[in-house]
């Protein structure tokens, strides 16, 4: 990368304005998601019902009249239940219709909106706003890059903007691919606002050229994969957290801990009446958990993201080592940043091992995943801010 002589102040200024506008729109999107969750709770909230997912039956029935070939596969579940998956091939058309499952296992909840139309509308508005904010956000990043004719990730402010962008973009791409991730809307907007808030308030630096140590095409490779990994680890973290929440909820629900919410149930325990707050909190918990996907869905999602990202993270570290070799003469010096990348890598390897080791799956593995993410977070914020090393560049 070569040195452009200076900085275009207009573009730099435009970039800041775009980032702030994006933040404003994300904020409105966040509120819309909050409405979605709130209105959604007004719908019927059942204490864990097993009679869900009947809607698929209609699709099956419609397809069956024309069916030439049909197969039903029975899949054994973890808790002794079974799921069935039906595949139908229509006569004369050669196309297959996958009609999906029917299950007596844990099922995914209907999503934040529940059955409420108002909530659904709020959710749709939130998503449109998120897309708008994403465009503004992307524009801000591009303008920043153009203002100095270089890749826009040369300091922590810029990483953070790019990182938040990667996170939202991943979410929007998943939505566009019709994956069932709309429930992620609230956590994603909150995380993005948090990241951008810290970026603009704490980490901000003016748009400038880079110190010579960053004049390398490895900046584009190493830093962009690092940013991507960060966004993905973040998503896996949210999913792990929700797995833990959902898993403990299911357990408690199975133990009958929420039976007292049923209409007509005795609102007391060992002769003591449940307090009003307790009931309200339990209601919220039941309402939220019943709308979220099942624990196993979260668990699988977090595993998949982590497993997908692990090789890329490995690559990021190796790319960093190659760059370090070019810049400092040694590919590994145990610089704090390198050390924490290594710690993070080992922690995720630990998690993957746990998934393959008897007695370590489920919650224990989830705790390891949380610890690994904590390492990642420390590597990102902690090392840059509190520990000085060779990775300390202009304006943090």
């Amino acid at each position, binding site marked *: 990368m070569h040195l452009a002589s200076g900085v275009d102040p207009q573009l730099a200024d435009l970039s800041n304005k775009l980032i702030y506008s994006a933040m404003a729109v994300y904020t409105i999107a966040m509120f819309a998601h909050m409405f979605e969750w709130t209105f959604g709770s007004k719908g019927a909230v059942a204490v864990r019902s097993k009679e869900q997912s009947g809607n698929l039956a209609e699709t099956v029935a419609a397809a069956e009249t024309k069916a030439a070939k049909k*197969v039903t596969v029975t899949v054994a579940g973890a808790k002794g239940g079974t799921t069935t998956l039906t595949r139908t091939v229509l006569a004369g058309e050669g196309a297959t219709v996958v009609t999906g499952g029917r299950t007596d296992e844990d099922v995914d909840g209907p999503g934040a909106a529940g059955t409420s139309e108002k909530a659904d509308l709020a959710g749709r508005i939130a998503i449109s706003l998120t897309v708008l904010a994403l465009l503004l956000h992307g524009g801000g990043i591009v303008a920043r890059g153009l203002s100095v004719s270089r890749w826009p990730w040369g300091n922590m402010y810029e990483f953070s903007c790019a990182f938040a962008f990667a996170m939202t973009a991943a979410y929007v791409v998943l939505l566009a691919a019709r994956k069932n991730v709309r429930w992620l809307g609230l956590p994603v907007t909150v995380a993005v606002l948090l990241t951008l808030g810290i970026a603009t308030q704490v980490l901000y630096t003016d748009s400038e050229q880079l110190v010579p140590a960053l004049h390398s095409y490895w900046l584009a490779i190493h830093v962009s994969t690092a940013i991507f990994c960060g966004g993905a680890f973040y998503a896996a973290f949210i999913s792990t957290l929700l797995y833990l929440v959902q898993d403990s909820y299911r357990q408690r629900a199975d133990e009958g801990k929420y039976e007292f919410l049923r209409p007509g149930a005795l609102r007391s325990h060992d002769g003591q009446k449940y307090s009003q707050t307790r009931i309200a909190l339990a209601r919220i918990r039941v309402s939220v958990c019943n709308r979220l996907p099942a624990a*196993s869905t979260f668990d699988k999602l977090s595993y998949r993201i982590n497993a997908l990202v692990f090789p890329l993270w490995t690559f990021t570290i190796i790319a960093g080592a190659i760059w370090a070799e070019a810049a400092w003469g040694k590919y590994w010096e145990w610089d704090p940043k390198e050390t924490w990348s*290594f710690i993070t890598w080992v922690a995720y390897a630990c998690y993957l091992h746990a998934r*393959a080791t008897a007695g370590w799956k489920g919650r224990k593995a989830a705790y390891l995943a949380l610890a690994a993410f904590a390492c990642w977070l420390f590597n990102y914020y902690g090392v840059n801010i509190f520990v000085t090393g060779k990775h300390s560049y202009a304006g943090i």
Partner: protein
Amino acid sequence: MSKTTTDTELPPAPDDDTAAERLSTAPVESEGPTGIGVLGWARWMWRQLTSMRVALILLFLLSLAAIPGSLIPQNGQNQFKVQTWKAQHTAVAPIYEKLQLFDVYSSVWFSAIYILLFVSLAGCIVPRTWQFVGVLRSQPPAAPRNLTRMPVYAAWRTGADPEQVNAAAHRLLRKRGFRADLSGGSVAAEKGYLREVGNLLFHLSLFALLGGFAWASLASGTGGKLMVEGQGYSNTITQLDDFTGTRFYGNQDLDPFYLKLDDFTSKFQNTGDQMGAARQFTANVEYYGGSDESKLKKGTIEVNHPLEIGGSKVYLIGHGYAPVITVKNGKGDVVYHDVVPFLPQDANLTSTGVVKVSDYGVGPDGNRTQLGFSGFFLPTAPLSFAGTGPISLFPGDAAPELVLNAFSGDLGTDSGLPQNIYQLNTSKLTQMQQDGQPAKALLKPGQAWDLPNGYGSITFEGYKQWASFNVSHRPGNAIALTGAVLAILGLIGSLFIQRRRIWVRAVALPGGGTQVELAGLARSESAKIAEELAELAVDLQDDAPASEEDGDGTAQADVEAPAEEAVPDAPEAAASDPAVPADQNSKE
């Protein structure tokens, strides 16, 4: 060996041992020492060490052990910082020293952890490799008697001949890339061996990485050289400023080459928030490898762009200014003329340095004496030093000034003791005075200072830039890089490929007709096995159409639903048997 480690293990029925065989060759956990005596214990300990659980614990320990080194200054990186830290924490420093906390990554305990980890890895990977070779040479395990016990299952009735159905299934499975074996009235098939290959490759390449590191730490060496524009040097131990060798790369092994710094360019940000931040450093050099002077070439060295000469790489690591100084004695003879590198003290290149005039000769008082000067070079001097002292405001040379103090007496250079060329030993020197004050001068380029008491003059002729280089010889990079690339490839295979088995069995029913059963087994994580089985079944129905009399005309009615006793992992089992995964419900 009562339990195995993978989630693909199902509690096997006595007659289903081989079919439900693990899909991974991960080591088996053992519960306690079998045999008696030392051998039994040794074997037990070895098994423990090579178990997944211990690998997990060692990995965890490794990440914990790496933490202190990132928070406490390390000798390997910055000895100066270590010294300052020790001076500030005198109470705990000796304890830290004992615990090797200033050399974490070469400490006994850190080494112990990773050596154990690699021993564990070897003990785990080598047997796995053999076992896997065995798996590749044998046929996929035959179908278990009771297919309904498998995690995914489908069945229907057909009028087709059982043998033809089996043959068709065999053909279809092959077409899908399965290794398939038709025997005993059923088809056994397996796919996704690359997963295991990837896993083995990944773990083995960790050894290559380690080997690369080890070789680098045994056979590398680095030296430092500071050159002013126009200077050159031959890469020998006498001409290098400093050199650190290792066991297999010592003073005599230095790669022979010649390097000269022609000129140096530096540019700095001169506006805004980051004013003064470096924007460009380029060293233009001339060099030749070996001793053949006719091969002299031009080159540039920048940060991130080292120059490779022979087996060494030359890195640009620092730069600064070097004033050109001339000293005349009382009679007006030139007694000193040289460029003197001054060392930067801050980001704006406020630099300090000394001038040692050891051949001054006879002083005004008739005795032999020597002169010494110490001072500051300021690339951009402020208008006044009031309140700040001599500091530079900007790293570029916008308003260069030289600030000097003068001394006379004995420099101590003849004592035979090695001297730091950047420091003045003032123990036998007296500072020159003027008007009862220490004599001091502030010079712009071209200006001269007439020293007090007839000592002559010192002239600041001008200045050049200097650059310092790190000359590094590090073998083993290629090995480590190969290891790293293979590790990534292996990981991709290991994490993205699913190993799975499918069985098909068609048998004639006593009352006429044929019962077709399909079953599949895979690791739970992201297994698409159910869909794969469904696709296979749909294809198979071309050869084995479902009988019309099946209730609604589909196979569904005939599915021998794996009811209570047939489901492999009933809740009680899941609770009591850690080998049964919590996430076995792997349907998409």
